[in-house]
């Protein structure tokens, strides 16, 4: 089985996503500032969502005809059109799952932001190490 340049490039994309996951995990676990933790957490969840979309992608039917979004554009669809469409459309299911996940993720991040603000108001710092020392 020879190495296909397209498969190689696609795998490179997936590898960079794994690396993003690792870097942002480092940010969540090891950086002292709570704000930096929130930023890293958003990157982490975005990367996880991107994985779902990447899984739903497909090889092009031929190297010159691109896939289409999962939306029927000819109303009413004829038999031939449906065959053409199903041979080209990408998977709609991960997109539907990610769609709500992004909005919910934002709402949860907003809650975290308010928590951080409240911690700052009480302790005058967002550094977790100093908060741990101040704990009384």
């Amino acid at each position: 089985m020879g190495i296909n340049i397209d498969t190689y490039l696609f795998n490179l994309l997936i590898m960079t996503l794994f690396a993003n996951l690792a870097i942002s995990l480092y940010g969540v676990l090891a950086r002292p500032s709570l704000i930096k933790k929130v930023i890293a957490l958003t990157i982490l969840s975005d990367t996880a969502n991107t994985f779902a979309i990447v899984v739903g992608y497909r090889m092009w039917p031929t190297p010159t005809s691109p896939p289409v979004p999962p939306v029927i554009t000819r109303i009413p669809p004829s038999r031939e059109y449906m065959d053409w469409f199903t041979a080209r459309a990408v998977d709609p299911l991960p997109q539907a799952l990610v769609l709500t996940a992004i909005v919910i993720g934002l709402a949860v991040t907003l809650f975290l932001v308010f928590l951080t603000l409240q911690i700052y108001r009480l302790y005058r710092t967002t550094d977790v190490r100093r908060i741990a020392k101040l704990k009384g």
Partner: protein
Amino acid sequence: MIAPQTLVFGILALLGLLSMVATYLAVTERDLVKAVVFSAIQSTAYAFMYYLLMAPDIVLVYVPVAVGLYPAVILFLIKKTERFEGE
């Protein structure tokens, strides 16, 4: 002549590398405002990636959330607290 498929997959790989660099800079930068701007670059790369992966619905919801709302929220938060991360 490069086939269009290879061209598009190449752009995808380039975007992945760009998002990796931006993520690294955003996580290690000590000035939090700059970190927010780096994360905006990473979000733009992801948005373009979603577009090339044929997910217009996701772009429509991801661009407002990640380019518009996250930076605003974090900037509000930094304005109310502190700008530099202690080391």
